[in-house]
């Protein structure tokens, strides 16, 4: 396959065409707003195309490691253990995007179960650790989002 230009470059090139060729030729306000929205969506897609497999893989490892720590120390560990067993049984080592996403979802379920346990047991240290992982997930989302505003409002 052709790996260069990258998917990110191609999408950003389309975005550039949209902004520099199509937008100036459009006068209709509703369509101009749609173009601004599409610009944003394309920018988001470019960032995801460049990084999402790596980001999901890294987060998967972090979430599962946390769930294993909760399962090792919590008293009510059945939910976390069950999620971890599902992860172990169904995870995939394939790097195809759908497979990486499915494995990521299994790991996310481990994190959810671990957070439920840590919060229910009032374990402040484990709860804080879980919150830090969530904050990292949101930091990644914010990186994908980039600059964003409610286009067309007001």
């Amino acid at each position, binding site marked *: 396959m052709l790996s260069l230009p990258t998917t990110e470059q191609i999408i950003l090139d389309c975005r550039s065409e949209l902004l520099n060729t199509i937008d100036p030729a459009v006068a209709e306000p509703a369509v101009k707003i749609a173009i601004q929205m599409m610009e944003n969506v394309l920018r988001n897609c470019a960032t995801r195309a460049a990084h999402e497999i790596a980001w999901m893989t890294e987060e998967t490892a972090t979430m599962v490691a946390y769930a294993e720590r909760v399962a090792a120390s919590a008293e009510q560990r059945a939910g976390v253990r069950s999620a971890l067993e599902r992860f172990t049984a169904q995870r995939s080592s394939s790097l195809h995007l759908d497979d990486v996403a499915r494995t990521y979802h299994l790991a996310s379920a481990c994190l959810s179960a671990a957070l439920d346990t840590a919060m229910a047991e009032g374990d402040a240290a484990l709860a804080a650790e879980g919150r830090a*992982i969530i904050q990292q997930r949101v930091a990644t989302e914010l990186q994908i989002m980039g600059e964003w505003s409610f286009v067309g*409002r007001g």
Partner: protein
Amino acid sequence: MHDPEAMPERLAAFLTELDGGRTARVTAYEAMIGGYSRLMARADVHWSDGTTEVLVLRGDPPPGKSMAETDRDAEHALLRALGDSGVIATPRVRGYDPQGDRLGTKCIVIEFVHGQPLQAILNGTEAATHSTHAEALVDSMAAVHSIDPGVLAEVLPHPPDWHTYMHGLIDRFRSSDEGHVEPMPVLRYVAAWLESHLPPPLPLRVVHSDFQPANIMVDTDGVHQMVDWEFAHIGDPREDLGYYNVYAAALGPNLFALDPDGFLARYRERTGFDEAAVNMQTMAYFSSLAAISVYSQILAGAGAMARGENSGLMTTYTLNALTVGHSNFLAGCAATDDPETH
């Protein structure tokens, strides 16, 4: 509404039949920009008796093209009740097509407000002038929260009590997670956190639930007319405080941030709520909680797209609103924990 070319004729026939005496002619019809969840259009109408008026149409997008599913029947009933009772300034309903067979989709026809959205006014004026708008905004919010819920008892269900309501609202974080196409640990964390940090209760009141300056039309007399009531419900009035704060922080300018203490003091004065219930800490709490109604609708739209049941630019574009929501949920938790807000 999905066929703008046909709309002048269809709308004219609809209005003529509704009026029962005069004949309507629609001389201009154009889509309005800025509405995210519903289709909006503006129509200039000339009546056979020589009068003219401007009307606004608010209708459902085509099936599978909506970023959020809300009930037009319920919204229409609420708008009628608000208009009939006169408890708040809001554009009057002129007609409703409940089947969508007259106007092409379920559609509410309301009077046009001659003026500007408060958001446009804020965008076009210097920050130094915004304190007056902040006071007016607080007054409008307090006016919504001063409506007697009993006046709207027929159209807005009243929860049994504050605790039941709050637990149900917080549970929407969990149900949103459970109903989504992928696990959302942030929602599970925030739900558990909110349950363990409940604020002092307040009487349940009418909550607009999308209280933002784009939904406040400032008419030519300077009167605030609240629009877009589709998410309104009976709930904790502080939801609107928190929602306004997170929305304005994202879009700007944030009139609460101009003078937080003054903003809350005026709100308390206008509503009669005390400082134990309305303070910086409860503001932070509701800044985490309040967006769940709108958030869950957007998340449902994203899930529908992932399942191949929905499509459209608005759904993909508002995926970032989910990220903003996650960020605000966590920021609200952190601010409530912060001793500085106590």
